[in-house]
């Protein structure tokens, strides 16, 4: 198996990155545009194979020195790559075809392929520069997936999304530069720079920036405002891939860049706190929402919180093995969340009885997030159980499961009552891929689990009870919430983002001030005076540094 990996691996890694770009090239040529649309679902195939290969065997890598690209895939990366590729593959089956002929279809397709390349690339990027490149790819073109239809809401969501994305880029650029500067030999390989981090003089600055930068991507409270807006505004397929695959760029970022080899209790605990706060905050706001897509977004905020908390514990206790377990938890979320979004899309196109099956499926998927036995979710919980241990963290994890249960049940009921949208969206392909992804979301994690351990122990009574009781609490609180549903406070989607937008608008008043200053400075006497002062300042500087 590993021998095979060494033979096929490098090729697959390069193909993972190349395939979407090749399809893009085809798409840009008007002649082959139709062909490109048709074969888009095949673009993630190499990634799928590569992921499977990595889960099974030893890590493998590939170098393209001419392009300054170096790739590398290990087990955690493999788990996420596999899941992400699966989602991209299934959703691509209808995503581009559907849009065809509608306004902005081409723009959407180009953004789709670019985002795909980035989203798959982050899991295999091995050096700072490559990672920064693919991270930019997964973040920035997605703007056009979010702001696809040009209604006010999506414009706003797009602007907010882009602002956060660019801010994240800037923060990460600083972080990466610090990492590179801290590496004595001048290597930009992620493993080297992270290994050198504990000894680096810029350790804490780099860690802070890494957590903030990727925290934005995974919507760690209070950096989460963009996520609900975005997923509510984005078209179903876009929301599915972004919430499923796209967000995991942040997870892999934390996995790759947090120095899990050395213990950082302080930063670890900070991350744990931030994580659990997000986990419960997401649910608390989520249950007050009316719109199913927004609720799913908040559940993502909550789930990513759990992941952050898990990584925080690993960081505090220098637990390198944790990476794989967290990756598995995240991979499960990739599939389930994407499937849930497609379900929302499916439900919207049906009504009456026809909704029953999808709603049941939605319930199963939702509870899978909460760890329902016999679903991938149970395995996911199992994977991170030992990490949280039996202490306060363990309890918090259990409670977050309960909270998720509550949120998901309320979500299903809201979904059941959601108005039927125009049937136009209901293409056959969409229904098929929805079904396929739903099934995959429930089964694939089981297949991937052997990467971590045996699934048998899930069925031990004690473990079962551990899984069940939080869900019972969750179910009861869900019932309670449903009773008082109309008395819940109405909180705008994205909650604090509203305040953030206000602050931003306030900051715009800086513009006119600057303009006035500029007009003064561009007056001749002012400029002449400035020239004189610059000269004298430089003379004085020379004298001072004698």
């Amino acid at each position, binding site marked *: 198996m590993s021998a095979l990996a060494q033979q096929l691996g490098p090729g697959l890694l390069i193909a993972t990155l190349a395939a979407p770009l090749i399809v893009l090239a085809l798409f840009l040529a008007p002649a082959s545009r139709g062909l490109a649309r048709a074969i888009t679902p095949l673009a993630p195939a190499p990634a799928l194979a590569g992921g499977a290969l990595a889960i099974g065997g030893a890590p493998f890598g590939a170098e393209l020195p001419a392009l300054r690209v170096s790739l590398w895939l290990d087990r955690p990366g493999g788990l996420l790559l596999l899941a992400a590729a699966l989602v991209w593959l299934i959703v691509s089956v209808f995503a581009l075809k559907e849009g065809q002929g509608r306004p902005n279809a081409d723009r959407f397709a180009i953004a789709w392929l670019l985002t795909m390349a980035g989203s798959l690339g982050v899991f295999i990027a091995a050096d700072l520069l490559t990672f920064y490149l693919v991270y930019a790819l997964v973040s920035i073109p997605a703007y056009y997936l979010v702001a696809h239809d040009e209604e006010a809401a999506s414009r706003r969501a797009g602007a907010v999304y882009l602002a956060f994305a660019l801010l994240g880029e800037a923060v990460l650029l600083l972080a990466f530069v610090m990492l590179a500067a801290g590496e004595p030999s001048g290597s930009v390989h992620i493993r080297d720079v992270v290994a050198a981090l504990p000894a680096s003089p810029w350790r804490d600055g780099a860690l802070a920036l890494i957590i903030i930068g990727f925290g934005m991507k995974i919507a760690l409270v209070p950096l989460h405002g963009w996520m609900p807006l975005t997923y509510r505004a984005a078209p179903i397929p876009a929301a599915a891939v972004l919430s499923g695959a796209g967000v995991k760029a942040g997870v892999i970022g934390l996995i790759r860049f947090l120095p899990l080899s050395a213990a950082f209790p302080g930063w670890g605990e900070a991350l744990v706190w931030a994580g659990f706060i997000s986990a419960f905050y997401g649910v608390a706001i989520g249950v007050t929402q009316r719109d199913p897509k927004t609720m799913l977004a908040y559940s993502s905020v909550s789930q990513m919180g759990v992941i952050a908390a898990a990584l925080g514990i690993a960081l505090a206790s220098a637990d390198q093995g944790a990476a794989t377990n967290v990756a598995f938890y995240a991979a499960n979320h990739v599939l389930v969340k994407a499937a849930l979004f497609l379900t929302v899309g499916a439900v919207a196109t049906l009504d009456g009885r026809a909704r029953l099956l999808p709603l049941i499926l939605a319930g199963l998927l939702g509870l899978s997030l909460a760890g329902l036995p016999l679903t991938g979710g149970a395995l996911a919980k199992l994977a991170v159980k030992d990490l949280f241990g039996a202490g306060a963290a363990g309890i918090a994890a259990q409670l977050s499961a309960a909270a998720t249960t509550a949120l998901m049940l309320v979500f299903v009921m809201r979904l059941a009552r959601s108005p039927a949208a125009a049937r136009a969206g209901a293409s056959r392909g969409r229904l098929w891929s929805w079904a396929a992804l739903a099934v995959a979301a429930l089964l694939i994690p089981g297949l991937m689990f052997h990467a971590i351990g045996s699934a048998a122990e899930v069925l031990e009574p004690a473990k079962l009870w551990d899984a069940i009781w939080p869900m019972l609490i969750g179910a009861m609180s869900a019932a309670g919430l449903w009773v008082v549903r109309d008395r819940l406070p109405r909180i705008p989607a994205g909650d604090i983002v509203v305040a953030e937008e206000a602050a931003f608008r306030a900051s715009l008043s800086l513009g006119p001030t600057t303009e006035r200053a500029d*007009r003064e400075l561009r*007056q*001749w006497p002012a400029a*002449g*005076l400035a020239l*004189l002062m610059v000269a004298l300042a430089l003379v004085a500087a020379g004298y001072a540094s004698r």
Partner: protein
Amino acid sequence: MTSATLAGLVGAALVGLGLYGLIANPQPLRKILAFNLMGSGVFLVFGIVARKGAGAGLQADPVPQAMVITGIVVAFAASALAVALVLRLFEAAGRATLNPDGWTEPPGDGAGAE
């Protein structure tokens, strides 16, 4: 107090004067005057340098002198171009001022002579 030192002081003073005129004088033509004044001050500094470099039977180092001659010609060319611009501006706009404000927003295509 040699004539060279004296000229040096004058040169410095001229630079200061020209500088002031160049910055504080509102009319472009006066700025051009000030520029020439300042320039001649700089040339005088060259002159001092040349004078202090007297030797080898020469009363002054010829190299800086040559530079001054080149400089004077260049300064004249500059003044000529500047004056032409001032006059053109005066013809076109009825005023000769460097004030950036108050120009009409250029007609749509900023593409100049296209």
